[in-house]
C-alpha cells in the first residue's frame, strides 16, 4: 500500500487549496456543494483503490466501491485542513474503517431478520418447557405443535440458532465454577476411559480444560448422559451444551493430534 499511497499522494496535492477554500466558506454558502463535489470526484480513485483491496472476500465489488465512496464523502466533510494533516492521511483510514464496518455489519450473524430472531426466542422457550415436561429433548414437530407454527418455521428458527454462536456468552459462563471434579463425574472406574488411556494421555488434557467444559465432555462421553440431561445438571441450555461440546471436542482433537 505504501508505494501506491505515495504515488497517489503526489497527484492529489492540487486539492489542498480547494480544502482551504471550502473551509473558509460560510456553512450556508451555496458554493460549498460545488467544491465538495469537486473534492469527492477528484478523490474517487482513492476510494476505488481501497475497495479493490477488499476484493475476493465474498462481497460484491460494486457494493464495496459504494461503501468506500461513502467513506470518502464522510472524510471530505469531516476533514479539517487547520490541523496540519494532509487529506489522504485522514481519508484512507476513514474509508477503510467504513469498508470494515460494512463487513462486520453484513456478516450473517447480525443480519438475521427480526422474524427469525423472534422465532429463535420462541423456540428456546419451548425447548426449555417441553424438555422439563417430557424429561428429554423435543423434536421439531413437537416444538411446532407446541408453538402452533409449521415445521418449516421451526426448521428456519433452528437454523438461525446457529447464527447465535456467541463466543463471548460462552466465555462469560465458563468463568463460573460448578464443582464437578473429574472423579465425581466419572464415578466408578470407567472402563472406556481406561481403554483410551492405554493409547492416549487424555486425562491430563481433560484436567487442563476449564471445569465446566471438562464436566460436559466427561458426562457426555463417559457418563452416558444426553445433552439435555447435562444441561439440566449444569444449569445451562441444551443449545449451549451443544456449542460447548463442539468447541471442546475441536480443542481436544487439536491437542491429541499434537502428541
Amino acid at each position: 500500500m505504501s508505494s501506491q499511497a505515495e504515488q497517489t499522494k503526489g497527484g492529489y496535492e492540487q486539492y489542498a487549496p480547494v480544502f482551504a477554500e471550502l473551509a473558509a466558506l460560510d456553512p450556508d454558502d451555496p458554493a460549498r456543494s460545488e467544491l465538495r463535489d469537486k473534492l469527492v470526484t477528484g478523490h474517487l480513485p482513492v476510494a476505488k483503490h481501497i475497495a479493490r483491496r477488499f476484493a475476493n472476500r465474498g462481497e460484491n465489488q460494486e457494493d464495496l466501491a459504494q461503501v468506500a465512496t461513502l467513506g470518502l464523502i464522510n472524510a471530505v466533510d469531516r476533514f479539517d485542513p487547520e490541523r496540519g494533516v494532509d487529506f489522504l492521511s485522514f481519508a484512507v483510514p476513514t474509508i477503510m474503517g467504513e469498508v470494515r464496518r460494512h463487513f462486520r455489519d453484513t456478516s450473517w450473524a447480525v443480519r438475521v431478520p427480526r422474524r427469525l430472531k423472534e422465532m429463535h426466542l420462541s423456540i428456546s422457550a419451548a425447548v426449555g418447557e417441553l424438555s422439563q415436561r417430557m424429561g428429554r429433548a423435543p423434536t421439531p414437530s413437537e416444538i411446532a405443535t407446541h408453538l402452533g407454527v409449521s415445521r418449516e418455521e421451526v426448521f428456519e428458527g433452528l437454523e438461525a440458532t446457529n447464527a447465535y454462536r456467541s463466543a463471548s456468552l460462552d466465555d462469560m459462563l465458563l468463568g463460573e465454577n460448578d464443582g464437578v471434579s473429574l472423579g465425581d463425574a466419572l464415578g466408578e472406574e470407567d472402563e472406556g476411559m481406561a481403554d483410551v488411556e492405554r493409547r492416549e494421555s487424555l486425562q491430563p488434557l481433560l484436567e487442563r480444560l476449564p471445569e465446566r467444559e471438562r464436566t460436559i465432555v466427561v458426562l457426555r462421553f463417559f457418563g452416558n448422559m444426553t445433552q439435555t440431561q447435562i444441561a439440566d445438571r449444569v444449569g445451562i441450555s441444551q443449545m449451549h451444551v451443544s456449542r460447548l461440546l463442539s468447541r471442546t471436542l475441536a480443542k481436544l482433537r487439536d491437542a491429541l493430534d499434537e502428541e
Partner: protein
Amino acid sequence: MTVSPSEPAMAEPTFAPAPIEVRVSANAAHLSVVRAVAADLAMREDFDLDSIADLKLAVDEACSTLIGVATRGAALSCRFSPSAGRVVVDVSVLADEPHEPKQDTFGWRVLSTLADEVTASTTPADSGKHLVRIELSKASGTVVGA
C-alpha cells in the same frame, strides 16, 4: 464444493432414495457446510434436538479424523442417506497410507457414543492410494407417537 443428489448406479433398486452427497476439499474450513447439511437432514427426519446435535458432532468428528489422514489436495466425500427416522452417513477420503481409524482412541469413543453404529475401513485405491472410510448411522433417540 458440490452438494448434489448422487447419480444412482444402473443396477441399484430404484425405490431407495438417492443419497445426498457433499464433496469438499479435505480442509477443516469447509466442515461448517457438512455440519449444516447433517443438521438439516436430521431435522427433517424429526430427530429430537439432542440427536440432531449428536449427529452434527459425529459428522464433525468423522470428517476431522479423515481430513487428518487425507492426501494433499484430496476431496472429502460425505454421503447422507436419510430415511425412516434414521440418517446413515458415509464419509471417505483418499489417503497416502492405509490409516484405518483406531478404535481405542478418544475420537472413536466420541464417534461410538454419538452414533448408534460406526464402522471404519480402508481399501486400496488407484495409484497406490487408499480409500479410508467411516460409516455411521444414527436414529432419533425419540420415536414420537411410539
